């Protein structure tokens, strides 16, 4: 499963939002997420993907952006 698809499933599990309605490039606020629910989602992402999101993460506000960030964090850095 792609990271984007996994992310959609996680949002479905966390907030009961239909994954087929989630678009990769739409701002998350469009789905009703506010600053509190976004904080909860980012925590769930860290737990699920076993990553530490950087503090600048609030600039990432689309699913595609989040998926890219997760992939970057999960790719072992070249020596």
């Amino acid at each position: 499963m792609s990271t984007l698809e996994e992310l959609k499933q996680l949002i479905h599990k966390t907030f009961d939002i239909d994954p087929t309605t989630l678009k990769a490039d739409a701002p998350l606020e469009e789905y009703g997420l506010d600053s509190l629910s976004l904080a909860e989602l980012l925590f769930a992402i860290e737990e699920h993907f076993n990553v530490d999101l950087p503090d600048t993460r609030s600039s990432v506000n689309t699913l595609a952006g989040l998926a890219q960030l997760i992939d970057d964090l999960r790719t072992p850095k070249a020596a």
Partner: protein
Amino acid sequence: MTRRVVVTGIGLVSPHGDTPGAVFDALMEGRSAIARWTSAGMPPAAVARAAFDVSRWFTRLQLAGVDRVSQIAVAAAELARADAGFEGLDDRSGIYVGTGMGGAAAIDEAFARYAESGRVPPLTVPAFMPNAPAAHIAMRAKVHGPVLTYSIACASSAVAIAEAAKAVAAGDVECALAGGSEALLVPGAIRAWQALQTLASPGSEDPSRACRPFAADRTGLVLGEGAAFLLLEPLDAAKARGARVYAELAGSGVSCDATHLTKPDAAGQVRALVSALRASGLSPADVGYCNAHGTATRAGDVVECEALAQVWGDAIGDLAVSSTKSMHGHLLGAAGALEAAITVLALERGALPPNMHCGPQDPACRVSLVQQPHTEAPQLRAAISNSFAFGGTNAVLVFRRCD
């Protein structure tokens, strides 16, 4: 300005359900909602849990950072508003909420996760802060007046109701949603209460009988969860809009023992009782029923009976007393509100809910207990509800039939 204040709405999320009439019927039958609770690595306990379908009230997305204590508060407050048929909540309305602990589930989860991994959920603080229930009710009901929280242990919601009634009487607000919420049936909180050596042991007996107020063989209190709210408004306004009036909140009395953090004191309770009677213009002989604090601890029940005997004197035998905690447990910060609702329903129905599970009565508890289910009291005109807190604060609410 001093206006007469009446109860026109009752909303409950309680161990006996969320329909006031059905809750009162269950209590009149003597049905206990107390059951055994177990968790791995812990001694068993007896608790009274409130069934609650959160999906009726919140979407999953709305639930981010909303502890159970706030969820049930929102539901009970909305049920009270709907029961009153009151549509005009606005900036002239107030919300007065009692809670002892706030968001216990959020605290429990945060501490467990911290111990396990050092990672704590980001919404822990807004979930557990004790004023969250009041804030969530305000957002849901669009109430823009005073939105206040009272955390006074077991007297929290009785004081909240007393303060709300004063605000309505004084004309500070035109309507108040007043009550309380408590939801601490989580392992860490139950373990803390067990450590304090105040909980009834479920033992090997029938756990539904674990709470035995005023009984010779009582062993302690049983924790319960739930939320209860009253809609309070001026009598004249209620009449003008043709509302059903359950009862008048005739007066209240609040005092502090200022003697000991956890040991109750009869003199302090007497001050609250006397001041409540004075505020309501009633004499002891006018009051037919007392919904007792009666937690079923060894010390507490005796002191409450001493206080009642001092105020009622020779007439103590005419005061019918029951602790409905025998059936719904101790809702702590929500106890005063649930028991106020039960007291109001007793007046409206002319019926007295029983003090269950009291076989031989403690000879040191000389009050006239309502021992039998289905006790009718058609002559009942006024009743009181006692709430006596850790910290020494005592609150007494006086209700009177309004007809």
